Each structure stands twice: as C-alpha cells, then as structure tokens.
C-alpha cells in the first residue's frame, strides 16, 4: 500500500547531505513524504507592526512625492499613458457603434501632428485616433480591412522609413486588442480614472528600468552606445496627442532627440536592407500588403486617403535618400489607386517648425491640422461633405 511507505522513500528526491540543514525551523511537505500534509503554520515576526507599517507608508509617500516633484520639475505634466489599453479603447469604438467614422492610422507623425479638436472644427467630425508610434500603418489597415464593422473613412499616415519597411515597434497592439482580457480592460479603466490624470511620473521614459539604463555606464568593446527614444509626446483622453513642449523649450533635450534619430541615419542598415535591391524588395512587399488591404476596404465602400506628413533636416534627407518618392510614395498611390496628400505638393503643409526633424511642434500642429483637414474636405472628400 502506498500509505505504508517508509520514510526513506523520500531519500532520492528530497534528502539533503547529512547535517546540512539541521536547524531549519519550519518543516515543509518535502520533510513529510507519503503522508497527509498538515495545516501550515506561519509565524508572525515579533515587531511593532503598526509603527512599522505607518513608518513604511510615510516614507513611501515622501519618496513618491519627491519622485513626482522631480519629473514635474523636468517639464512633465500629468497626461494619459500611450498604452496598448488606450489604443484598444479607441479601436473598440469602431466595433461599438462608431464604425462609420473617420479613422486616423499611421505612426507618430499622424499621432502628434493631427489635432483632433481642430480636425473636428474643420470637418464637423472628431476622428478616431489609432495611429501608433514607431509602427507602420499597414498592419492596422489590414486589421481594419478584416473588420466588417468598419465602414467609415481612413486617413493613413505614411512615415517612409516605417511604412515601406514594415517596421512595427508597437505591432503587439493589434493582437492585444483582439485578446484583451477583462482584467486588462479593467486595469486600463482604473489607471485612466485614478492614476494617469494626476501623476506626471507615469510615463515609460520615467520608469525605473529606463532611467537606470540611460545612466553613464561603462562601455563594452564592440557594443556601440545606443540611446533609446525618449519621451516625445503628451496625450489626452481620446489619444489626442502633441509633441512634448520640452522639445521646444529645452535645447539640450532637443539636441538629444536629434542625436537619437541620427543613430538611424548614421548606423549601418540591417542586413536585410543593406542594398538598394533588398530595400526595394521589402518596400514592394509592404506596398502589396497595402494594395490588398485597400482593395478590401474600398470594396466595402471605405475611402482611403494616404498622407505623407512633413519631415525636416536630416530626417528629410534620410527619407529622400533611402525612400525616394518615385520608388515608394508614387508607387503606393499608383498601385492602390487611393489618393494621397504629400506635404511637398501643398505649400500650406510646409513651413512648420519640427524641433527634432520628425514632428511638428504643438502650436504649429493646430495650423497644420487646419490646413490638412481643409485640403481633405476641399479636394478629396468634398462630395461626402456636401
């Protein structure tokens, strides 16, 4: 019978070297082979726990206050976290009765440069903002194409180095949306209610790991120092976003942001893109994905309009060198048959200040949005506005 096992049955799995643990004060199941395990006993260390917990809470509050004060002193203000949960909340609107609306997709330029209140003022409709930084618009277009609930219009931002390479820094956001658990959804709601509007420290750039990583650690031979992209945006409740004002007011921070982009311009290309032929092949693949997605959308009556927002300085040079318009943008429009607005074709979309070459500063973003929305309604969606 198993219950009659000898205690030596434990020997193989769980008997240590003799006398190694003679004074362990609390037995566990590993010490009691083949028997019913008793109710565990847990001792409470003798401490003045009331005083200990009050002291811990007080110190915790002080530390948090200091941390919050520090980041506010750096120019941060409370705002909404650009999380997967926030994105999913906006994406969900399409499936919950707002599928006929205008949707903004693309990467950070669509997110920062297009201001929802201004767009609403010009067009009469506040669009759904689901552009996401560092991420090609193509996967989101494909997701919308596969969603029959969506019957509205799409303004798709094209950031050449993302769109035509298929780079998707936040590509996990789409599967997150489709698999978001009730727990995550509640957590996002709680965060929006009780954390995000009140605390400036709640930003990926101020997280412990990010702060520690960017300290001046020694370098290792063969590993070039690379800086991660820093905080660039501030966000409101429905993902209306703009470039963080620190990029305008703090020359050192602005220079840092430019240096970070320059890593992309000056570093070697990835092995998969290290010749013009390889790069073109990847661009063609991405264009084909866009063609397929746009065809599906248009078959459902969805209007798709591509927009190439402005870049400046070295970013523009980089775009022109590696993603020349005639081999990327023009091909995209020709093959999808969708219309497009390239900032170089419209004087009213030029002349804005882009502090770090990639995004329009917050105050200029209002003017840019007004000009863009006016072009859209005047030249492209006129019939539906009428």
């Amino acid at each position, binding site marked *: 019978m*198993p219950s009659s*096992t000898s205690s*030596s*049955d434990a*020997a*193989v*799995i*769980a*008997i*240590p*070297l003799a006398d*190694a*643990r*003679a*004074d*362990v004060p*609390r037995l*566990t*199941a*590993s*010490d009691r082979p*083949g028997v*019913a*395990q*008793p*109710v*565990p006993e847990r001792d*409470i*260390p003798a*401490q*003045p*726990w*009331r*005083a*200990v*917990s009050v*002291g*811990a*809470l*007080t*110190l*915790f509050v002080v*530390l*948090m206050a200091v941390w919050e004060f520090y980041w506010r002193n750096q120019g941060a203000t409370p705002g909404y976290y650009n999380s997967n949960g926030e994105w999913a909340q906006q994406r969900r609107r399409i499936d919950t009765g707002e599928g006929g609306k205008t949707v903004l997709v693309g990467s950070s330029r669509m997110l920062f440069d297009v201001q929802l209140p201004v767009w609403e003022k010009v067009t009469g409709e506040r669009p759904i903002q689901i552009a996401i930084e560092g991420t090609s618009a193509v996967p989101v277009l494909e997701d919308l194409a596969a969603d029959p609930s969506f019957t509205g219009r799409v303004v798709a931002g094209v950031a050449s180095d993302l769109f035509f390479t298929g780079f998707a820094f936040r590509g996990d956001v789409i599967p997150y949306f489709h698999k978001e658990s*009730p*727990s*995550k959804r*509640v*957590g996002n709601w*709680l965060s929006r209610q009780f954390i995000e509007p009140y605390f400036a*420290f709640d930003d*990926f750039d101020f*997280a*412990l790991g990010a702060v*520690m*990583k960017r300290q001046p*650690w020694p*370098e*290792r031979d*063969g590993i070039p120092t690379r800086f991660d992209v820093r905080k660039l945006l501030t966000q409101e409740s429905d993902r209306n976003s703009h470039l963080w004002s620190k990029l305008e007011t703090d020359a050192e921070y602005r220079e840092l942001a430019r240096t970070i982009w320059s890593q992309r311009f000056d570093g070697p290309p990835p092995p998969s893109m290290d010749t013009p032929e390889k790069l073109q092949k990847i661009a063609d693949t991405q264009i084909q994905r866009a063609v397929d997605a746009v065809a599906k959308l248009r078959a459902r009556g969805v209007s798709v309009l591509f927009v190439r927002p402005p870049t400046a300085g070295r970013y523009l040079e980089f775009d022109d060198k590696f993603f020349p318009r005639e081999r990327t943008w023009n091909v995209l429009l020709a093959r999808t048959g969708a219309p497009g607005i390239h900032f170089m074709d419209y004087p009213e979309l030029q002349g804005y200040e882009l502090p770090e070459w990639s995004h329009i500063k917050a105050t200029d973003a209002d003017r840019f949005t007004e000009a863009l929305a006016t072009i859209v309604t005047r030249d492209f969606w006129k019939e539906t506005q009428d």
Partner: protein
Amino acid sequence: MVFNSLTFVAFFALVLAMHSLPLGWTTKKVNLLIASYIFYSAWNPPFVILLWVSTVVDWYAAQGLVKSEQPLARRAWMTLSVVANLGMLGYFKYGQFLLDNFSALMASMGIAYHPPHSDIVLPVGISFYTFATLSYTLDIYLRRALPARNFLDYALFVTFFPHLVAGPIMRPTELVPQFAQPRKATPSQLRFGLALMTLGLFNKVVLADTFLSDVAERIYDANKIPGMLDAWAATLAFSGQIFCDFAGYSTTAIGAAMCLGFAMPDNFRFPYAAVGFSDFWRRWHITLSSWLRDYLYIPLGGNRHGEMRTYAALMTTMLLGGLWHGANWTFVAWGGLHGTYLAGERVLRSRFANYRPGPLMFVAFGLLTYVLINLTWVFFRAKTFGTAWTVLGGMVGAHGDAKPILSAYSLICVAAIVTGIVVTHWLMRNRTLESVVARAPAAAVSVVWALMAFAIVIAQGDGSAFIYFQF
C-alpha cells in the same frame, strides 16, 4: 488577473473589505468563492467552466470513494478522477504536441500525415488546479484524508484565488480544515501579509521584469550566436528571473492568504544555496516536488524495489515533472537532466556514505550545484534544442569569434542581482525570512518595506504574466 496589476489591487482591497464585514462565516466563504471565480474569469471567462468541471468531477469521485468499500469500486472512482483531470490537461496542454509528434513519427515512416492546427488555448493555471484537485481524490483514495464536510469548503479549496493559478499547490489537508472555523487576520497578520506581498511583487516587478528578463530574451530569443560571457550572463539572468518571478508569485500568494487569515505552505527555501540536487528539490518549488514524490514516485515503487526500479521511478518522475512544465521536448530534457543529477548524487552518496565535507568543500559543492542547475535552465528557457545547443556552445567557449551582444549595463545588472540572490540564499540558508525580520530593527523593516514599494511603483511594470502561468 495577475497580482502585479492595478485590477488586482482594486480586487484585493474589495475582498479584504468584504472579508472584514460582520457577516456569517458561510457568507464570507461564499464571498471568497465568488471572488475566486471572478479572479480566474478575469483572464478568459469561458475557462471557468473547466474549473467547474474539475471541481464537480472530483467532488463526486471523492463521494464515491467514501461510499465504496470494494477495492475495485474505489479504484474505479479514483481512475475516473485521474482520467478526467489528466484528460482535460492532456487535451488543452498536450493535444497539439501529441498531434505534432504523431505527425513527425508518421513522417519518419514515410507516411505523410498533416493534422490541422487546432489553435487550442491553454487555460491559465490548469496544471496547478488539476494537481490540487487530484490530490483531493488521491488522498481520500490513499486514506490519508477525509472528504470535505461540504461542497462549499471543497470548492473553495480548489478555487481559493491566492493559490489557484500558480500554486503553491495545496493539499486538501492543508487548506480544507482552515475553512472549518471563522478566520480573520489579526492586525499584525494583515500588516505582515502586506509586507510579504510587497516583497513578492518587488521580486517579480523590479528584479525579474525590470532588470533580468530582457537580458535572457536578448540571447535566447534573438537568433544570435553568443560568446561565453553573453551566454553565461543570459543563463544566470534567467536563473535569477525565474526564481524572482516564481518565488515572487508564491510570496505574494502567501501574503494575500495571510491578509485573509489563512496559512499557505512555503514553496521556496532559498534554493540557490542548495548543496546537491536532492537538497535543491527540497528548496525549489517544494509543493510540486513533494506532489510528484507522493503521487508519482512513491506509487511507482520509490526505493523499495531495488536499485534499478528506484532509478527507473526516479527518472520517470523527473521526465514527467519536466513535461508538466510544458508541451515541449526541451522540458523533458530539463527533467531528464535533473533525473540524471539525482541518480548520480544517489550513486555518490552510497559510495561515499561516510564522507562529510568541510566548510570550504561544502560551499564548493554548493557552487557546483548552482552551476549544474544553470545548465538545466538552458533547456528550460530555450524554445528549441537548436537554441539550447547554441547557448550551451557559448557557455563552454565554442563560439570564440562571436561578437558581443549584451551591453556593459546588462552585464552589471546580472552580476549585481544574481550575486545578490546567491549570497542572500547562502546567508538565509538555515533561516527563515520571519526569523531575520524578527531580529531586524523596526526602522530598518520600515525603510526596506517602503523602498520596495517605491521601486515597484516607479518600475511601472506592464502587468506581464508570471512565467509559471504558461505551465
């Protein structure tokens, strides 16, 4: 929901509030049961049905066991429980794995068989709660335990949210009796419980997720050839990550239960100070290793039928223990390595029965144990044997011309944290956390508690799942 989430903070605050209301004990238990179902369904509501199936089948199987006197009938009820639980586990966890292997076997015989990909989603924690419910019927079958007096106590034993999805794997005799009488935490229990939860979350959110997981990922998931330093750094990082992740979960679970007035058993006892592999398994995932010992190794004959049967039972136990962790042959290899280590240790212990190591050799054996444990983590962490061999090759210096991958910062993090973990385990080797806390100045306890809580908040964890949820 995961412990490291805002949802859990709100959930737990509500549960604590409900538990402190002046309600009857049965009402409080019903509240805890409902809360536990909410806790589980917050991942994926339909999977709560599986939990109910497991609960109901084992309840009736246990009733049948109690009422039956005939050995055949008792065996039939026990078999029903085992088949139902392992069948469910097999379908959801190993279904695709079995199909893939069958397909590969057919292919090796020249038969082309391509089963459809089934996209089976693994219900979170299924390996844990099936083992918990199995222990209920098996303990009754083995006449080690009496059945719960009522269905509510039994259902709460299965479902009690602190241990539900990642252990510690509770036995009925450990938890069911605690439901017999009203339980409410004393103020000191509540505060120490919260302190334990803070410690557990610090391990998970700060040490595992913030500083160690990325290092392991960049070697094990990057498809690059690592040199010796990078391969060792990644493997050591994973050894720290998996300890902080899993022991962090267990500590949080123990603390949560304590806040409600319940006691849960230790699941870890400073395992990286183990000297020898049997010692390691007394310290690592104690509730699983003792479960496997009591319900698999001993029924297989244990060490009562000669050397060969002992080694066969031992290896079978460890191989299946490896497979329990995941539907991948790499986990079986991990279990096989541990089985080999344990068998080797048994041979040495019988050959050198009178040997007693001096202090230096004792520490040397401990470090050797830690190094060999790290070799097993390679198979545990690698998703394929190809990756495992690549990393192992790096660890033994086979990739002399490999380019560096990890930054100095990553290496410093791993060196500091893993050294800290190993030294702490050795200092705590023959102690409990409680005994150390009891001797510490109250102000120091406050400061450490506050610093850990501060680090958890500013780490801004993304609520990533605990590693063992996938098992």
